């Protein structure tokens, strides 16, 4: 078969062949003595219909569809050019809808679909394990991680990888010396860089000897960013020693600028995994074979499928399970990408679905808008369509023609929108990131378009063209030939019930969708306001906090107790300080502890959050003890007294006296541990989750030397915060100059809580705004169209004595009922799905009556205004002019 792309050439050949035939026939006739004129017409007549013959011959090769397509495209372009206003409006609406969707997709693509930014990343696989059955496992970061012993087992016994690397992704560290700063780095196996195929820009990366034994390999590879910011791009840094977590390490290499590790959060340094105990003193993860702490990445041998890899590794997993009776391990193997772990995906996929749905809704409004424009225009085109139909175009042919036009529109809009998205979204993401509090690490998300984004953009554009074009095309092509050809175009347009119904349905749909988005924005804004005004149950103002991780600085218990004790004593003497307390978890900080406890004789353990606090905690933070007593100075030695919150007491012992009730901690294997007795009840306070005061929560007496290894010091102060900060820093420096001190106000912790909801509110607000704009244009367009179509009807009403305001209210009534129905549907829809936002509402009811009344009112007012403007024109119709119209 001849290739289709040759069809133009073949077309020319066919033309020549036919011409030759005609010439031969003509020549023969001339020979027989016919006049030139006779010869030519005779040859033609004998040949028959030249066009039809050519078409039939072409049909043989199956190019007909292509030719039709060309024809349709040419015709469609002409039609679109002839109506610049319509075309511009439609293209803009589509560009907006497609653009924001392509933009958000490129963000999601950068966050979770892109392969890791390393050479030949398609060969890199991430390996995670999922446990089933009896699980008894120590977990650091993710349960799906591996222990060092397991990693060595997989590394040495697999047949599928050319190299398998492991790393602990997030190691907090303090850079010592004068440049004290907190850093986030990674502990890696010594083949890490080899497996990734990454090389140092200066110096070298790790060699096997660096990982030879535990405690060996005090060497570091640092990131380009750290080299520039902390060492001023010192060209002689490689080979020198720097102090990290009180451990002297030699810098052996600096990575190139583009390399930030294999996590979305950028790493500042990499150290051999064997340095774990030295860099994170007090924990021995390296030697614990039942400890999840290492992520695994392998470079697969060419040509192997994921199934083959899984089969091979599962043999090892099954063998390891043998020493853990009752446990079964399955492996999750995937192309390595950011946020690829089972747990992360479990969170990301629903979140992405909600975001994509919200953005998709705006596109839907844009589609409904353009559909309406097309429907309105259909009535103008009735005569043209009727003509095409009467000369033999089939319905299917007409639909194809009309769909070609809408796909052309979509292509123009989609291209424009995608280009805008590619150009602007990197900036938008930076803006959103800058909204995050400073304590949030920067994310290495690459939003540049790749083939996936381009594919998404093209697919979405094509789909958009069909979605908004199909209904108008079907409707336009099914017209009543008689009525249309009689030239009664006007009435064919507005008079037909189904046409008006469709247009109303489209307006209603726009309003409904717009309502959902605006309500989401309204709820989030209300939530933010609520979070600012709500009483958290403790005194937030005038409370400062500072966090010490002395364990990471290689302190032992007694030194830590000494340091914190001294600091507390001297802080209490600072001017303006009225109280100092110590706690395991600071109020509204990111630290949280929790476990399962047996309540009384019950055998069913209950999950309860807890905090170890010093006796002063309740008075310093401002949480009153409502029953019983607070902690005494020696309670931590007895280790038996606990204080529960009111709602915890209500839930565990409803209607009973909580004082004296007992809890037992749960030991490994589900055995009962030490007994605790309730000595006091504290008022509920949102110390752990903002907006949630009814979490199950209890306090243990804190202040033991072990507690001081990692603790918050809370200071209640009256006066200047800067002075307090300087004072605390001065004390800490005089005790140990190497301890980093960061003093924050508790109110600042609120920012961390509000940031996600502020970003979500901003996003929903922007989307809602766009939706509102599109929907009001839709309403405006529909009303002005129907007014212009029913000028005659209005003229008759006026002539029969109706006055302007009656006409006006008639028009408005007609315009508003689809709006009101759409609004009702939107409100009902929102009420059904608004619970997905509840985690960001700080305890505000997801069906908050204020939002659910104010937002619909606002939307209806806007719709009313949008229909009032064109309706005013109806009022001014001059009956005499109107009746002569057309």
């Amino acid at each position: 078969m001849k290739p289709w792309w040759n069809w133009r050439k073949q077309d020319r050949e066919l033309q020549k062949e036919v011409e030759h035939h005609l010439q031969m026939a003509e020549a023969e006739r001339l020979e027989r003595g016919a006049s030139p004129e006779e010869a030519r017409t005779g040859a033609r007549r004998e040949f028959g219909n030249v066009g039809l013959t050519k078409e039939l011959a072409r049909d043989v090769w199956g190019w007909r569809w292509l030719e039709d397509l060309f024809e349709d495209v040419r015709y469609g372009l002409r039609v679109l050019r002839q109506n610049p206003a319509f075309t511009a409006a439609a293209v803009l609406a589509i560009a907006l809808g497609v653009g924001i969707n392509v933009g958000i997709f490129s963000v999601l693509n950068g966050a979770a679909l892109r392969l890791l930014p390393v050479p030949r990343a398609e060969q890199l696989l991430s390996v995670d394990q999922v446990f089933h059955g009896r699980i008894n496992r120590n977990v650091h970061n993710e349960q799906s991680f591996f222990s060092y012993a397991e990693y060595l087992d997989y590394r040495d016994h697999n047949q599928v990888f050319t190299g398998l690397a492991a790393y602990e992704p997030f190691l907090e560290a303090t850079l010592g010396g004068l440049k004290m700063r907190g850093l986030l780095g990674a502990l890696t196996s010594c083949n890490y860089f080899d497996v990734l195929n990454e090389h140092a820009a200066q110096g070298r990366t790790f060699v096997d000897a660096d990982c030879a034994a535990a405690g060996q390999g005090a060497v570091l590879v640092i990131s380009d960013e750290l080299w520039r910011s902390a060492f001023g791009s010192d060209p002689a840094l490689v080979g020198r020693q720097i102090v990290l977590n009180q451990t002297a390490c030699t810098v052996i290499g600096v990575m190139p600028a583009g390399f930030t590790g294999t996590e979305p959060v950028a790493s500042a340094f990499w150290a051999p995994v064997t340095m774990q105990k030295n860099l994170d003193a007090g924990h021995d993860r390296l030697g614990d074979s039942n400890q999840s702490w290492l992520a695994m990445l392998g470079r697969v041998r060419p040509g192997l499928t994921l199934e083959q890899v899984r089969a091979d590794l599962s043999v090892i997993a099954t063998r390891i399970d043998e020493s853990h009776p009752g446990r079964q391990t399955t492996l999750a193997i995937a192309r390595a990408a950011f946020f690829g772990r089972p747990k992360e995906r479990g969170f990301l996929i629903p979140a992405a679905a909600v975001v994509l749905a919200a953005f998709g809704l705006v596109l839907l409004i844009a589609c409904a808008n353009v559909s309406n424009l097309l429907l309105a225009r259909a009535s103008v085109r009735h005569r043209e369509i009727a003509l095409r139909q009467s000369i033999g175009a089939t319905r299917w042919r007409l639909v194809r023609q009309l769909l070609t036009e809408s796909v052309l529109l979509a292509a123009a809009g989609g291209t424009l929108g995608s280009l805008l998205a590619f150009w602007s979204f990197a900036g938008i993401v930076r803006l959103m990131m800058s909204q995050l509090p400073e304590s949030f690490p920067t994310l290495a998300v690459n939003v540049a378009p790749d083939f996936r984004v381009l594919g998404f953009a093209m697919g979405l554009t094509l789909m958009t063209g069909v979605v908004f074009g199909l209904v108008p095309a079907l409707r336009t092509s099914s017209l009543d030939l008689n009525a249309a050809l009689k030239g009664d175009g006007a009435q064919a347009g507005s008079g037909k019930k189904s046409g008006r119904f469709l247009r109303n349905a489209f307006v209603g749909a726009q309003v409904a969708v717009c309502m959902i988005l605006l309500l989401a924005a309204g709820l989030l804004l209300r939530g933010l306001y609520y979070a600012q005004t709500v009483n958290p149950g403790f005194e937030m103002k005038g409370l400062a906090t500072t966090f010490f991780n002395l364990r990471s600085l290689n302190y032992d218990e007694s030194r830590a107790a000494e340091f914190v004790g001294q600091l507390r004593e001297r802080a209490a003497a600072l001017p303006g300080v009225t109280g100092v307390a110590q706690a395991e978890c600071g109020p509204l900080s990111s630290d949280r502890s929790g476990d399962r406890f047996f309540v009384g004789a019950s055998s069913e353990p209950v999950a309860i959050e807890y905090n170890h606090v010093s006796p002063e905690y309740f008075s310093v933070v401002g949480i009153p003890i409502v029953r019983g007593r607070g902690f005494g100075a020696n309670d931590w030695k007895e280790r038996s007294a606990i204080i529960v919150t009111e709602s915890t007491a209500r839930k565990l012992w409803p209607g009973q006296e909580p004082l004296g009730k007992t809890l037992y901690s749960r030991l490994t294997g589900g055995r009962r541990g030490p007994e605790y007795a309730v000595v006091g009840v504290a008022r509920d306070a949102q110390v752990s989750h903002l907006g949630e005061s009814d979490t199950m929560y209890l306090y243990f007496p804190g202040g033991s030397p072990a507690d001081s290894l990692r603790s918050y010091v809370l200071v209640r102060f009256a006066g200047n915060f800067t002075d307090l900060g300087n004072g605390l820093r001065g004390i800490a420096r005089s005790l140990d100059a190497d301890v980093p001190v960061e003093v924050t106000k508790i109110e600042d912790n609120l920012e961390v809580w509000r940031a996600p909801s502020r970003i979500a509110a901003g996003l929903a607000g922007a989307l809602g705004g766009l939706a509102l704009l599109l929907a009001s244009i839709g309403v405006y367009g529909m009303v002005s169209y129907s007014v212009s179509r029913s000028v005659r009807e209005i003229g008759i009403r006026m002539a029969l004595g109706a006055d302007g305001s009656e006409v006006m209210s008639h028009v408005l009534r007609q315009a508003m009922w689809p709006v009101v129905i759409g609004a009702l549907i939107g409100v009902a829809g929102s009420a059904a799905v608004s619970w997905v936002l509840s985690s960001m509402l700080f305890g505000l009811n997801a069906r908050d009556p204020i939002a659910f009344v104010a937002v619909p009112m606002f939307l209806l007012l806007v719709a009313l205004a949008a229909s009032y403007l064109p309706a005013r024109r109806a009022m001014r119709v001059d009956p005499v002019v109107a009746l002569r119209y057309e």
Partner: protein
Amino acid sequence: MGERYRNRMELLQGTLDLLVLQTLLWGPQHGYGIAQAIRANSGDLLQVDAGSLYPALHRLEKQKWIGAEWKVSENKQDVKVYKLTAAGRKRLTEERSRWAQLTDAIAGVLNPAAKKES
């Protein structure tokens, strides 16, 4: 001219392929030549419509029963010349035997008395 049309016969469905292939058996020929040859060899009785001929030629070309090449005629015109391929020859034999069966069968129906015993 009107004379000739009176004697014209409609081609039986499906016979055009046979006629075209048979005509090309005598040598390569262009479209007009094929039409003329069929007319001449049928004593002006069979008229091949251009509207049927060209689609048929292209269909046969697509099925690779005939091949086509472009030649330059004596008056410097590009002419598309068709010729029989090996597959076309085989096809012609099949078509001919089918045609023979068909004519035998029709003859048998029309002349029951002369039916051969076999």
